């Protein structure tokens, strides 16, 4: 199968500190890749370099074979890279539906067309489909700020998928979510993958969440890839245990 996202020998230093040193991996279409590692292993820096938030010191990022290294986050998104953030990032003053329309509107037509076109940029129907998929129907017209934390987390994920991206990168989706909500989030993400063929990368702290959701796992330690394989292989790898327990 073809690789949607390829990261090739990525490096990032801050002054003298090397946060990421030569990370390479690729994500195949329809795959859920987990990236795990102990605190300070360079996960977030790696993510920020892939997503154009930071400029990598060296290395390449390719999307469907095309070099996208150093593109601005908005350009990257319009080429089909969706993301969520570690902390919740919905727009509290907009309704759930408006949040989703916002997440999709920049992907259709020209700016001028949007100015004179319909108010919802023709996206009400697809927003409502997404709302249905994430089981937020009764909340479509509620202000996002009034939702519970777990519901906002679902909306946050839904926004990342709204524009029909090639790949979505989720930054610690399980953080701060209670167990019931975690189960439904995981269930929805898996449905996203199985029913719609969505490809995504999950950075997580929560080992259990990653191991039960992902098809393949990359383990980072001290800014480099320590191990790679299926959840079972990684779990059996003594070096991984060492890295986690050693810290």
């Amino acid at each position, binding site marked *: 199968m073809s690789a949607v996202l390829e990261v090739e020998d990525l490096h990032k230093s*801050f002054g003298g500190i090397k946060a990421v040193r030569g990370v390479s991996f690729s994500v195949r279409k329809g795959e859920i890749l987990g990236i795990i590692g102990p605190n300070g292993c360079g996960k977030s820096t790696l993510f920020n370099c892939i997503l*154009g*938030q*930071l*400029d990598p010191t060296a290395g390449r990022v390719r999307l469907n074979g095309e070099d996208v290294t150093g593109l*601005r*986050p908005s350009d990257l998104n319009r080429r089909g890279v969706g993301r969520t953030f570690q902390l919740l990032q919905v727009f509290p003053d907009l309704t759930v539906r408006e949040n989703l329309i916002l997440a999709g509107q920049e992907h259709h037509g020209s700016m001028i067309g949007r100015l004179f076109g319909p108010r919802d940029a023709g996206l009400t129907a697809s927003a409502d489909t997404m709302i249905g998929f994430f089981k937020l129907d009764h909340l479509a017209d509620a202000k996002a700020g009034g939702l519970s934390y777990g519901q906002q987390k679902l909306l946050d994920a839904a926004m990342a998928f709204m524009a029909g991206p090639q790949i979505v990168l989720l930054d610690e989706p399980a953080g701060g979510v209670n167990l019931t909500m975690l189960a439904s989030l995981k269930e929805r993400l898996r449905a996203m993958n199985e029913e719609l063929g969505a490809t995504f990368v999950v950075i997580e702290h929560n080992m259990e969440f990653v191991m039960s959701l992902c098809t393949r796992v990359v383990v980072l330690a001290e800014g480099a890839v320590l191990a790679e394989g299926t959840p079972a292989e990684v779990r059996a790898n003594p070096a991984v245990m060492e890295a986690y327990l050693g810290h």
Partner: protein
Amino acid sequence: MSEFLAYLIVGIATGSIYALAAIGFTLVWQTSQTINFAQGEFVMLPAILVLLAVKLLGVPIPVAVLIGAAAFVLIFGVGFKRAIVDPMLPHGVLPLAIATMSLAIIMKEGAKDGFSAEAQSFPSPFAADTVSILGTAVSVQFIMIIVVAFASIAALQWFVTRTRTGRQMQAAAQNPNVARILGIPVERMVMLTFIINAALAALASFLISPIYLAKFSNGETIGLFAFIAAIVGGFNQVRGALLGGILVGIFDSLAAAYVSTSYRLAVPLALLVLIILLKPEGLIGRKEERHV
């Protein structure tokens, strides 16, 4: 050449006064995110208060200076923070910035209506002699301004880096939450920066008013130059504000001499725009890396 040297010394002297205002400006900005648009008026008013004390109370100048400085620090150090900054800060930076703009209008118009619309002479504490430096006659006044301003800034720097209270103040400015956990009385430290700001403004006022006379509208230029100095130097440090102030003073002095007087103001402004475009973190500020 000797003419150039004279302008340079005048520039350094006025620049060190701008630096005093700029340091206060950055201190207050760091501890409470207050962009004080009345900073220029803060430098204008103390001299007016002193003249007012002389006029109303008939006290001699040194006593009036003490009264003026004390009243100013009380009202525009402690009072400013209590009455304006504290109630507005929770609502964001912008309403507070606008409030300081209103305060600037009140101070300016108050000085005009309550004292005088005309420029008044303000006595200089220094002798009116000149000394010869490298064959150039330089007024003692300018030399003394430089000495006093630098001594004050050095004392402030010593206080901030070498004393316990000063270090607590720095900690409160850099990370109030951590400081609070460490048991530093953050509130008191923030108040201290407002008091220091008012004191620096008063000092700047007493140094600059003998040169430019005391006038209600003085704040406009002084405030503008203090902002420019703070940004040019790099918003977050005493050293930066000092460097910025002196640069602005020199640019202004040389512009007055060698560029047309009608476009004199344009030179420091151009410096500001250049710095913001080319090195937005300031000449010796810290850079933050993040894309949007």
